[in-house]
């Protein structure tokens, strides 16, 4: 390799570097371009459909007019339910991994479990939800089944984010609390957890944005094509925004007449998810800069 380096003509080497760096820049720009194209398409075609009525009304006339209100509310129910179920387990799991575990086989086994769970395709979560929550536990196709399925899906995301946040808290915070005579749990509760809250919240927002956009896990566990009222109980079916976009674009008999409504719904979903992600990412960066422990 040294011979190569020396042998090469300096001008050619510089040219090669310039070409290569240009290609690397283009690869990076392709990601910008993809995001820009998606965002632009949705804004250009969907903005005209947006209005207060679009957000606050039920679909009308075989879903060819009206709004997405029940789908929005349904997505909110499903996501909130998933978070309420998953968050306590995820926090406890993260607290054990970060604060109590002393390494060893069990920790490795759990990490493998968390990573594997994160890699399971979302449609397989849907199958589990159907076989277990809908059938075996008898919850039926309902808000409850859908929320539980989504809870399993976001569990690994929440565990990883919370653990990372806890581990970012400096060791001397814990030592200080223990030196004052606090028990382990007292130290975790009053010192470590409060310091980790921003990081945990960031992870929570990312988990919510993932849950709100998922379609495959709720297709056979919760989602309804069309409903004339909001769900009134946990055992009711529910409309959900991503599923609504899917059926409007592919399965609805009038799909060519509702182009604007479809773009509008996709814009609303994309907007919510991107705002949450952007908020979480920038907030995390700010907290990291500010808190140089």
């Amino acid at each position, binding site marked *: *390799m*040294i011979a190569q*380096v*020396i042998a090469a003509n300096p001008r050619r*080497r510089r040219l090669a*570097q310039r070409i*290569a760096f240009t290609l*690397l820049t*283009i*690869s*990076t720009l392709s*990601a*910008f371009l*993809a*995001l820009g*194209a998606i965002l632009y*398409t949705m804004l250009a*075609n969907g903005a005209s459909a947006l209005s207060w009525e679009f957000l606050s009304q039920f679909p009308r006339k075989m879903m060819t007019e009206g709004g997405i209100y029940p789908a929005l509310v349904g997505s909110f129910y499903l996501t909130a339910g998933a978070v309420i179920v998953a968050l306590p*387990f995820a926090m*406890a*799991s993260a*607290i*054990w991994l970060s*604060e*109590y575990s002393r390494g060893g086989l069990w920790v490795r086994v*759990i990490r*493998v*479990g968390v*990573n*594997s769970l994160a*890699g*399971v*395709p*979302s449609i*397989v979560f849907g*199958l589990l939800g159907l076989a*277990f929550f809908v059938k*075996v536990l008898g919850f039926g196709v309902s808000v409850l089944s859908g929320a539980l399925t989504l809870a*399993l899906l976001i*569990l*690994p995301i929440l*565990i990883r984010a919370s653990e990372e946040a806890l581990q970012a808290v400096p060791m001397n915070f814990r030592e200080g609390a223990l*030196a004052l*005579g606090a028990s382990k*749990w007292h130290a975790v509760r009053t010192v470590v957890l409060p310091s980790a809250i921003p990081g945990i919240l960031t992870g929570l927002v990312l988990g919510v944005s993932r849950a709100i*956009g*998922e*379609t495959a896990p709720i297709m*056979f566990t919760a989602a309804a094509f069309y409903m004339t009222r909001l769900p009134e109980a946990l055992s009711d079916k529910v409309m959900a925004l991503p*599923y609504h976009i*899917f059926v409007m*674009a*592919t399965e609805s008999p009038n799909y060519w007449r509702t182009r604007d409504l*479809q773009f509008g719904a*996709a814009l609303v979903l*994309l907007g919510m*998810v*991107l705002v949450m*992600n952007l908020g979480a*990412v920038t907030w995390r960066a700010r907290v990291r800069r500010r808190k140089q422990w």
Partner: protein
Amino acid sequence: MRRRQQEARLGFLEGAPLDLRPTRATGVRGVATRIKERWDRPVFFGVSSISLVALGLILFFIFREAAPVLGEIGLANFFSARWSPTGSPPSYGALPMLTGSAMVTLAALLVSIPLGFGAAAFIAEVAPRWMKDVAKSVLELLAGVPSVVYGFFGLMIVAPALQAGLGLATGRTALTAAVILGIMALPTIASLAEDALTAVPDSYREASMALGATRWQTIRDVTFPAAFSGLIGASILGMGRAVGETMAVLMVAGNAPQITASLLKPVRTLTGTIALEMAETPFGSSHYHALFGLGVILLVIALITNGLAEWFRGRLARKHGR
């Protein structure tokens, strides 16, 4: 000296009232208090197994519901080339979906691996600080776009464009799915590859530059080879994600269960078939079990790719002493 410092530090405790002293150390509290104070470790230990419980549930139920594939359907039928669950006799051949998934995924990786590695090299080795942060945020946002939005974008924009551009009968083809999947896998591959490149110690780069290599020669001949196993891990994980992707592929792949070598024809994937047919399938029918059979294939692929990716990434970490 050290001893004296220690005594000086603890000296204030001498003669202090008992309950000011650290309770664990002196052990003056009763058994009841001790139980009250020590519930935490076993409880957190128990709850920490929740992800294993979830994984166990998935394995158990997917395999249990797929078991009749071995009996009432038969492996010969399941791995045949014809998928026609409503035909008479019904045929549950998974081969068209296996080839469909493989084709779409491999074609997608042809897009996303070069772009992903390029973006990773740019972020890790070339870009100035501020550019790095912006590019990483963009990747994160791209990863956050819901798959139904990708599918919708593919259906409305990419499919018509390809149909017009290539003069096809339909825009919903394996190629369309591959393009969309390629964009979707890009952020996964790019950010993991960037991790791998960042894990290579700076001393490697410094040594290479000291020998007179340019930055590009250093990236090509030193950093990339040193990060090789991490890059492989990133690609495998990207592949696993692409195989398991459902909604986007369902919306743009065309969903014709056929075995074809042409990227310009509609194909059907494993995930697409489950999504398409499960809702209308009677519970407990052969068709239902066959769809869970497809789920088993997906689950096994996911677990294997995940395990392999972890192993490759771990190898990189071990090599560079992290």
